[in-house]
């Protein structure tokens, strides 16, 4: 359990949010030309990092907006929060 600083609403409890998984997975530009391996990579394969990970979150019980977060998954400490479309911060 941790507090998340929603870029739109400010600090709220994590239970108000929905985790949206790994961030910056780009939807294929030309889906018809993808091989099965590339589809599998896009749909299923995840980095699942132990350590600093870039994620998408949604303030489901608040403003309902999506945003990005940098979080250390080994101790749930949040490093940064930034809006969709913004450049991810470099460590």
């Amino acid at each position, binding site marked *: *359990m941790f507090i998340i600083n929603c870029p739109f609403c400010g600090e709220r409890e*994590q*239970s108000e949010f*929905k*985790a949206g*998984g*790994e961030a910056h997975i780009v939807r294929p530009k030309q889906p018809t030309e993808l091989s*099965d*391996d590339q*589809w*599998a*990579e896009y*749909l*299923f*394969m*995840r*980095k*699942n*990092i*132990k350590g600093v*990970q870039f*994620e998408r979150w949604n303030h489901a019980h608040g403003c309902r907006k999506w945003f990005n977060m940098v*979080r250390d*998954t*080994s*101790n*749930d400490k949040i490093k940064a929060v930034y809006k969709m479309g913004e450049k991810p911060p470099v460590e």
Partner: protein
Amino acid sequence: MKNKYSIFSLIKNAFSYHENWEKAWKDPAPKKEYDVVIIGGGGHGLATAYYLAKKHDMKNIAVVEKGWIGGGNTGRNTTIIRSNYLWDASAGLYDHALKIWEGLSQELNYNVMFSQRGVMNLAHNLQDVRDLKRRTHANRLNGIDAVYLNTEQVKKFCPIINTSPNIRYPVLGGTLQRRAGTARHDAVAWGYARGADEMGVDIIQNCEVKGIKRNGDNVEGIETTKGFIKTNKIGVVAAGHSSVIANMAGLKLPLESKPLQALVSEPVKPIIDTVVMSNAVHAYVSQSDKGELVIGAGTDDYVSYSQKGSHDIVEGTLNAILELYPIFSRMRMLRQWGGIVDICPDASPIISKTSIKGLYFNCGWGTGGFKATPGSGDLFAHTIANDEPHKLNAAFNINRFVSGDLVDEHGAAAVAH
């Protein structure tokens, strides 16, 4: 040969105040080279080593474990065993395990306290009823014992359940698998460890894997905190940390690791003699032989390796428990903990070869791996020894995420996620 555990050995050792029991397994330093190294000393990993030695005549085997054996998810789960899965592939896999459970204590000469007290799954709405009936029929076609119970029969089987129609999620019925039940999780790890050790398997504890050495498409060995170990075959059974190990070999897996919580109450007199699960309200409960209620909660929806979960998950589970069992309203909880479970997109496990020769993965068991421990070990040992899957785990290969031939148990079966 190890001394056999029996009533006579118990009496004999009582005379020496139980101070002279033989060690159940040695604590060896790693050798330079092994034929097979298993990464992960939980139930599945130890079982794999046991069956490699027993059924495939391999003797030069090591199990490396970063902590103590059985200290991860093996010692953190709610010990439920059942095989009432919907799809043929899952039914085959889990019932294979259940059949081994039935003779496991005798085989290992170690009491794993397997108790076939039955597992009941509750239905709370019309769709639940339809799904559970469908699953009951599917189970029977696969030779798995399953019966559908109406509300009165549920009440008769477990009288403390609140079957009033006036609760938020009324009990409309349920399924019962009588061969299902529970076992003592630590004993499973210790029993397999003792059996494997007796056949010459080196169980190396406090030895964390730091890297996997590859030579092109082959593996050459592992870097550990106790030095380099040379081997051509690596079986990874690292549960929540599978992706971390995969990363070391340059592989990506379709897994997400999430915290799953459980809790136990103070011990009380026998009150519930079966296991009751409810997927709709997400609560499951049984009673341990010590008298504690063993309660399982759900997973958090974010990736985490912290072995801690959120309080709101526990709160939600306890709300459901209290509505279904008002008699527990004044029970106090003793302990709560989390384990990190690796979940596949189709909620089925991976027991498979990989694109790297000599590297095998047994992972993705998600929230329900304990029940499969003996079967998982047996089939993974077969896969490693023959470099080919057994027909029972062929469907659980890693390529299904490319071919699309998923074993989609998510929501379709008795999987509690």
